[in-house]
């Protein structure tokens, strides 16, 4: 049996935090490489920047909801900013910085696409100029947001990897895996799923995207394999954890909800997309949904399969 102190809420939070960070990263790459400006309408940056803040906010609310005394007496949350030996304290700071930057970035994207919003805002905020230098503001927010996003994605892994008492987690591979999975779920949500629905030929626009994505998916598969192999070779409860995932009670989730929809299927679809220079509409949506679902169940598996050291 895995550890029992943290459950679903933490797993969902780790997933949403990673996917929110990954969505912003996806948008920031398209923005900062200038790809965004090759088209009149760019769904990728709009969706990526737009959803990143809300996703991380929902995740953070789940975290607060998971607290005990901190939920009943919310002012106690202030103390969580104070103890810098704790990775959770780093995380609280990162979230606090990430959320406003990502919300602002998302707002800029939305306002750029729907100029009426600025006019409406100016009815209340009279100091706002009639036109905004969207492009420069956006690039600054994308840059700052991307740095914070990498921080958010990595810290969710470090949060677990510092725990020596759970050998499955106690590896520097875990923060790497979480970073790669954050990027992959972010791309899955904003491009495969979101942008494909908005502009079906999106992959034809950015030839590099399926290639980046297939590299991430491949890397993720390798990292998952390594985490499990390292645990297996360690013996003891670490090997038990690996067994739990690969062939024990959690194996169905691993193979049916992580490996197939999140690694195998999207790999095939993206390999095809590279050759055909386009995503099929249905296959794009299916691979996006699969990647997102797999991202959630990957966090679930890691949280729930972490068996503590034996006494």
């Amino acid at each position, binding site marked *: 049996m895995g550890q029992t*102190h*943290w459950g679903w809420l933490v797993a969902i939070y780790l997933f949403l935090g990673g996917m929110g960070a990954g969505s912003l990263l996806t948008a920031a790459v398209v923005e900062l490489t200038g790809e965004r400006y090759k088209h009149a309408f760019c769904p990728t940056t709009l969706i990526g920047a737009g959803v990143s803040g809300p996703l991380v906010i929902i995740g953070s609310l789940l975290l607060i909801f998971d*607290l*005990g005394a*901190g939920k009943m007496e919310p002012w106690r949350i202030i103390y*969580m900013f*104070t103890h810098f*030996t*704790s990775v959770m304290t780093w995380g609280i700071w990162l979230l606090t910085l990430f959320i406003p930057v990502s919300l602002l970035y998302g707002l800029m994207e939305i306002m750029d696409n729907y100029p009426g919003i600025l006019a409406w805002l100016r009815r209340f905020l009279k100091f706002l100029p009639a036109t905004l230098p969207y492009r420069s503001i956006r690039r600054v927010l994308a840059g700052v947001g991307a740095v914070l996003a990498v921080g958010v994605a990595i810290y969710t892994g470090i949060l677990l990897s510092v*725990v020596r008492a759970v050998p499955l987690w106690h590896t520097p591979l875990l923060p790497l895996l979480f970073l790669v999975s954050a990027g992959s779920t972010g791309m899955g949500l904003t491009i495969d799923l979101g942008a494909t629905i908005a502009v079906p030929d999106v992959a034809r626009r950015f030839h590099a995207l399926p290639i980046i994505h297939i590299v991430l998916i491949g890397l993720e598969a390798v990292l998952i394999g390594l985490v499990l192999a390292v645990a297996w070779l360690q013996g003891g409860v670490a090997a038990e954890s690996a067994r739990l995932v690969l062939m024990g009670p959690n194996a169905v989730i691993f193979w049916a909800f992580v490996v197939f929809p999140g690694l195998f299927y999207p790999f095939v679809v993206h390999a095809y997309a590279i050759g055909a220079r386009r995503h099929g509409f249905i296959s794009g949506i299916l691979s996006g949904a699969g990647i997102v679902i797999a991202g959630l169940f990957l966090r679930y598996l890691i949280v729930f399969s972490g068996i503590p050291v034996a006494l």
Partner: protein
Amino acid sequence: MTLDQALAEARGKYALIIDLNKCTGCRACELACHQRNELPGDMSYIRVYPKQKPDGSPYFLPVQCQHCVKAPCESVCPTGATYHHESGAVLVNDKTCVGCRYCMVACPYDARRYDEEKGIAEKCWLCLDWVLGGGVPACVQACAPGARIFGRLDDPDSEVSQLIASGRAKPLHPEFGTEPGILFYIFPGE
């Protein structure tokens, strides 16, 4: 000396040594702790695990907070609610704990208990009010076979100091790397 230089000149100011040769597994310590701390349900800061010696015969292993010198529960705590008292005991401030349970995940001795009602992760605090007043913890009082030996480590003549210096009393699972500071054990056959 040695046994790691008598555990780096004995760690906390106090020691609680449990002689597993004398423990009968009666769980009086568990109950005394439950009553002393008015804990809900059948919760206790102590758990008594049934174990087997290599020859198959049974023995019992009572485990509570080991008051680690390098306490992972303290370093992972985001609020600083878990802290070291000058006595060497690891304590929890119930006014600042948010109940995130990171400490529970991080403690390799599974020594933390979550009080659902208060939303706080508590643990053995060595009955420090009694101890600082010259007394002993409730679990030590309650142990009829005398398996629990409590005393001062800053007095080299105390029974606990002697037991550690002789190498008979050792930390539980030193490989966890947390350096238990107050709890030590005399293992079966030693």
